[in-house]
């Protein structure tokens, strides 16, 4: 796999901790946008992020971030910001210094570092408490100050390990808006999270992991399409649910057509969503049924997670 200057590339990457598997034979490349790493505890999400940022080295394979590797730290870490889930801080530090001094290590002068520190504190909503010792912060504040440090130098690749942990709903919404704004600027945002509803809402693509392996990767809709063992669920709200259900049953690929309690909705389970769409078009054209709404019912990260990893994967 050749490195691309816009992509993040994992080229046959494996990581073993002695005899314990971290991740195995990871191969994928990511375009700019929001990518979510989803998987149960111990599935290898943090290992993948630590590999990506050079905190650990792969046992096999190579990782390229915008064409760079972590062996070129000066260029690499100007492009990469990593908000880890380690809830530890240098002793005695306050919020301002926690951001300011790393910026000085980037080579910024006092004026620039001050400006960038204040901007990061504002963006993370921490400006008011910046001069307080981090040791006195709440969990949510510690999370936000780490986020502020990760974004302070305007990285092109932002890696966030469980960034929504410990945040109240308001801070969570603000953080998500911030990630989306960063992604809109053409940057990479890589998030690991166990809050699947939020992952689903903000992600451009997902990487599903289980036991150190990448189970599926790509845009959520594409990944769902690939899951052939589980027929797709389509919810149709129409004028005559019974007629639609009986027409659907005549198709081989439809495995279930369930009329819901409101009497106007049918939940179709089909192995071929495209063929079902054609049928629906024919029925509507013939004027047999009036369709109000059609929506996929399991075209989300949560369903894909359940199908691919299931309860065997342990708690998410």
């Amino acid at each position: 796999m050749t490195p691309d200057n816009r992509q993040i590339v994992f080229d046959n990457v494996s990581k073993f901790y002695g005899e314990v598997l971290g991740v195995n034979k990871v191969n994928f490349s990511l375009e700019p946008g929001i990518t979510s790493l989803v998987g149960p505890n111990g599935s290898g999400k943090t290992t993948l992020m630590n590999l990506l940022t050079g905190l650990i080295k792969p046992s096999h394979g190579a990782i390229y971030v915008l064409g760079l590797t972590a062996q070129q730290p000066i260029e690499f870490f100007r492009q990469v910001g990593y908000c880890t889930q380690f809830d530890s801080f240098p002793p005695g530090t306050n919020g301002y210094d926690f951001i300011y001094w790393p910026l000085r290590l980037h080579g910024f002068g006092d004026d620039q570092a001050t400006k960038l520190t204040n901007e990061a504190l504002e963006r993370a909503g921490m400006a008011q408490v910046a001069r307080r010792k981090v040791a006195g912060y709440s969990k949510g504040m510690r999370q936000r100050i780490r986020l502020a440090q990760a974004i302070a130098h305007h990285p092109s690749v932002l890696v966030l390990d469980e960034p929504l942990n410990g945040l109240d709903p308001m801070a969570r919404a603000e953080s998500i808006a911030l990630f989306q704004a960063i992604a809109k600027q053409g940057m990479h945002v890589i998030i690991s999270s166990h809050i699947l509803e939020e992952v689903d809402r903000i992600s451009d693509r997902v990487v599903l992991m289980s036991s150190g392996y990448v189970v599926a990767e790509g845009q959520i809709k594409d990944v769902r399409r690939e899951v052939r063992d589980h027929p797709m669920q389509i919810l149709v709200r129409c004028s005559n649910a019974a007629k639609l259900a009986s027409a659907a049953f005549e198709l081989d690929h439809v495995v279930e057509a369930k009329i819901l309690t409101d009497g106007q909705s049918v939940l179709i389970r089909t192995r071929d969503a495209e063929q079902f769409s054609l049928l629906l078009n024919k029925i509507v054209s013939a004027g047999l049924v009036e369709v109000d709404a059609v929506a996929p019912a399991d075209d989300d990260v949560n369903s894909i997670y359940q199908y691919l990893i299931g309860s065997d994967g342990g708690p998410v």
Partner: protein
Amino acid sequence: MSIQGSVARAQTTFKDQPWRLYASQIAVLVRTEVRRNLFTRRRLWVYLLALAPALLLGAHSIFSRYHVDPGSIEDETEVLAGIVQLYYFRLGIFFACMGIFTWLFRGEMVAKTLHYQFLVPVRKEVLVVGKFLAGSVISIALFEAAVLACFYFTYARFGAAGTSYMFGGPGLAQLGAYLLTTALACLGYGAVFLALSLLFKNPIIPGAMLLGWETVAPIFPSWAQHLSVTFYLKHLCPVKVPVEGPMAIFTVVTEPVAPFIAVFGLLCLTVAILAASCFLIHRLEVTYTAE
């Protein structure tokens, strides 16, 4: 200038002048590390280790201020030489450097804060040099202050005779030699412990082995003694402390080494160990669960 402009400018400024960037990064590292490691309660035992002889000498000078015999100044000079060479060089500086320099990396690993320094655009070699210099500043400042205090308490109570010994006699030269040797001891032991902390998860056992080596090195052939920090230090000390007890039987007397050679030899040893640390740090991974 906009923030984006500032970022872009900073990213290009140092591209052609990496040494300027390295120097500024080392300055920042030294400043932050000194602030974090010097003025902290965690280092209280190091202060005690450094200042214990000075406190004892201070107490001695207070309690014996009415029984000062100007003729005993030479005896006091030998006592001071023993304190510096046997206590500071073999124990005080050794253990303080073990505490200070091993904490620079391994301690941060234990505190789960090392990743912050691995996620900034700093070459690992620069990180090693910056941290080493910070540790050196801390240990040298502490032990030079302690040696100065020891000198003051030793000679001040002699009044005019003490002043004459210090400024009209060999006192000042001895002080200069001890300050130089103390600084070299801090650099030498510091480099060794920094390397050990990168090589071993628990540097205490190899540290104890090193202490054993430094103690028994005098009974080894001359060439082997060159691998000991105290070998260089003892040739720089202005007052010789006689070796007594069973060790005296086995001690191999080596040819005197010129001060220039001793200083140069110890600095070479320090640089060589530091270069090894620069190599070792590339193997270091941030895996806190393994600590």
